[in-house]
Structures are given as C-alpha cells and as structure tokens.
C-alpha cells in the first residue's frame, strides 16, 4: 500500500449528484463487513 485510500460515499443521492456535477459514472460496491 502507498498511503492512498478511496473516500467512499455512503449516500445514494449524494453520489448521483456528484456524478452529475463532475460528469462521472458511479461505481457501487455492495459489501458484507463480516
């Protein structure tokens, strides 16, 4: 690892709004923490 980390959105609507304003896609990862 080189110190980088992904800053994940957890809010669906906020992620879509950011994608719209930044002209990007959304990458959704549904995970299980256990």
């Amino acid at each position, binding site marked *: 690892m080189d110190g*980088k980390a992904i800053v994940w959105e957890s809010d669906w609507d906020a992620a879509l709004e950011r994608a719209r304003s930044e002209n990007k*896609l959304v*990458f959704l990862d549904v995970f299980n*923490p256990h």
Partner: protein
Amino acid sequence: MTYPQSFVIDALVQYAIPLQIDNSQPARQTLLHRLRHIWTPDCRVLNHNGEELYRWEGYLPPAEFAPRMLFGFGIAYLREKRYDNAEKLFEDVLRRFSTAIAAPEAQYYLGVARYRRDPESDEMLEQWAQLRARYPGSEARVKQSFKELPEPAKRSSSA
C-alpha cells in the same frame, strides 16, 4: 485487499464516484431489494440517474479487478453512446491487461464500439480479426465467429 492497490484507486476515481453500501445494515434492505442484491462483492457501474450500466459479482484479485472495472466503465460509456470514451477504455484494458480475463471481451466490444460509431467502416471486422488471433479459445471469439474476415493465406515455406 483489492482497493488499497494504487492502480485500482487511480482507475476508479478517474472515471467514477465511489459509493459503498453495507448489506448488513437494516436501513439498506429496501434499497438492496430494489437492486436485487444476492451476493458480495456486488459491483455495479451506474450513470448519474442511478441506471445500471454494468455489473458483476464475486471476488477478483487486483490484477483482474482493475481490468474488469475499466471494461465495465467502457461498457457504461458504450451504452451511453459515448463511443470515444468507450474505445479509450477498451484499448486501455488491452494495452495494460492483455492477459486478463476481461481482455477478450474488451477486444470484442472495441469492435462493437467502432461499428456503433461508424457502421460503414470495416473496423469492427478488423478488431474481431485480432480477437480471433489473440484469444482463439475465448467466449468472445465464439460470439464473433458469425462474422469475420477471411483468414490470411498461409505462406508456403521455400525449400
């Protein structure tokens, strides 16, 4: 294990907003039902309207995850008719991850993207000829086998 890899991070944030949902949280169950979620990891590429453009499930190590994700972004752009972006991503997969599981599909859909951009050109068949040569045992090769350029004539060896 996959996401700390810098080449995965770089590819993800270049093209997408990362959104993560914990499937153990009660408050998420309605959304997960709507998504028809069944297994983890469950990876989707969406547009800004929340429409699903690509998906896959199950673990992939970083060297397979990155090309699968880039391929997924390419398919997303193809579905959005953003052909330049789609082609660039398929070409990136083929250049950087030519032995990845996603590579034959990238070669196949590079042909599709070229065709969608210009149905009159021969570029789809040219890309599919490369698919035939580079990935002869792949599922993508089977899918393109209905339409192809003739095999180049084999040169006879001189005595």
